[in-house]
């Protein structure tokens, strides 16, 4: 048996990797469907006379959506592991596949419902938009739920610093809500503020006068949500993955390393919390330095 701290660090690294992949995929999934903040502008566009070919996936906020899909995947995986004794990887893949099916049904009905309920503005219901976008939506969603349930499962392993007392479905729901929140807060700006209003200068905010006047034409033909994903995959997705990966990595790394001070009772937890506190202070300072540097170097947005 290896040193428990070394084994723990290995698990933490794996969890960080899964979280990074999940974060990137989650942001891109929300971009394919125009969820969350950008959604209100896609919804508003036809009322302003701007008809479009963009997917309107008004399922709910990202946190609850991802909590539901990850919860379904985690619960089905939990059943497959315990009731059918299937291998863990296969069970998680099976759970994520069921969640992807539910995801597709919700995505289709939300797009159709929202478009049809504003038929007075003549927005056509483009069926090819529905069918073409379902694949990327389901695919990205599968990657997210697989990674989230995977890292939730790793948390329950009987290892020092892990062995979480909550059952897998519970952890999957909680982590699903967390990834949705991170994806919504970190990733949205790269679609909502940047890509959706590409014909206006970036950094000027979105004044009420231009609400609903979203970019509807692409380099060739009408813009669809796939064009949005190509753009967001360059920066918005990876930076979301980095943010979520860092959160998962640091929060578990600190308690595993905290065991160096002594592995009895609450000692690892107390030391881990202390280490985490120092990390957070450092991150606040680094964030402030980066922002001050960027403002001085590139200057404020000018009229």
């Amino acid at each position, binding site marked *: 048996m290896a040193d428990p701290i070394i084994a723990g660090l290995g698990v933490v690294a794996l969890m960080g990797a899964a979280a990074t992949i999940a974060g990137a995929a989650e942001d891109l999934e929300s971009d394919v469907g125009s969820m969350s903040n950008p959604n*209100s502008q896609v919804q508003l566009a036809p009322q302003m*006379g*701007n*008809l*479009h*070919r963009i997917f309107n996936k*008004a*399922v*709910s*906020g990202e946190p*609850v*959506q991802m*909590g*539901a899909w990850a*919860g*379904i995947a*985690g*619960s*089905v995986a*939990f*059943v497959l592991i*315990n*009731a*059918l004794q299937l291998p863990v990887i296969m069970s998680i893949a099976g759970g994520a596949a*069921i969640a992807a099916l*539910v995801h597709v*049904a*919700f995505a*289709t*009905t*939300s797009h*159709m*419902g*929202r*478009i*049809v*309920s*504003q*038929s*007075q*503005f*003549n*927005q*056509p*219901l*483009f*069926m*090819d938009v529905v069918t073409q976008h379902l694949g990327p939506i389901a695919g990205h969603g599968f990657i997210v739920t697989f990674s989230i349930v995977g890292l939730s499962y790793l948390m329950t392993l009987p290892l020092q610093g892990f062995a979480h007392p*909550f*059952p*897998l*479905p*519970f*952890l999957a*729901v*909680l982590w699903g809500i967390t990834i949705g929140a991170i994806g919504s807060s970190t990733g949205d700006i790269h679609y909502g503020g940047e890509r959706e209003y590409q014909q206006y200068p970036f950094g000027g905010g979105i004044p009420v006068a231009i609400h609903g006047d979203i970019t509807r034409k692409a380099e060739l033909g*009408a813009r669809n949500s796939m064009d949005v994903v190509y753009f967001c995959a360059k920066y918005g997705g990876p930076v979301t993955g980095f943010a979520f990966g860092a959160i998962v990595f640091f929060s578990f790394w600190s308690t595993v390393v905290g065991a160096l001070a002594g592995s009895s009772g609450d000692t690892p937890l107390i030391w881990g919390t202390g280490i985490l506190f120092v990390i957070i202070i450092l991150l606040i300072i680094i964030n402030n330095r980066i922002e001050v540097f960027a403002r001085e170097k590139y200057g404020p947005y000018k009229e």
Partner: protein
Amino acid sequence: MSAAGGPAVNPMQILALGLIGGLILLYLPVLVPLGPMLGPLLFALGAVVAIIWGADAIARVASYGLGTGVPSIGYMSLAIGVIGGIAGLAGALMFGSMSAWLGPIMGVVLAMIVGAVVALMGTQVLKMKIPILVRCTIELSGAAALSVLGFSAAIAGSLSMAAILSSVVATGFIALLFILNTMAIQHPFNACLGPQENRVRTLKLAGATAFMAMAIVGLLSLGISKAWWLVAIVGAVAWFYFIRAFIQASAKEAASVKWSGWWPEEDET
């Protein structure tokens, strides 16, 4: 079209279907020995009618321009429903084990009381000016409690507190039921909101989301209940029926349905 005129669906009928129908479906397997196959099926169907009732209640209250608040009031009601439902099951045991049958009714009533308190806070303290907020929040809380109780009983195979505690709460499925029923109740109106919202079409979608949740509940009871495949298959077949009806209604009511091409030229600016 229901948007401008009165609702196309009578809210009292939906209320009766959800509350009375739901309670009958929940109590029938308790009162009449139906065996291990039919019991969970009826429990799950009780949750389905409760979800349809909840979806109608949310559509009525959210028509006052709740917008992004549609999902929020859904989660709020499910939070109340989970607390009320479990508290009702546990509270009924205070009167001795003979009165355990009181559990579901107590759960629904407790949830409705908590819902009333929350809604009165909204109208009296926060001064929210939504005329039917109190009534609809009470309805939503009752629907949420019934849906959680029904699906919990479908997984556990019985409405007893001990069975639900060991096979729904201890396994963590209760967290999924919370968020899955939230989605099933809030999604129909959230997906269909807009000036041309048609309540009949919205309720078709409510049937689809409710039966989809039922199919998943069937999968979850694999290994706990013998009737898992029956619940899952009935849920999946009924889901197919409702989502087909919803897609056909959408195609009929859309401004136009196209498989390719641009949007209409006259709107080019």
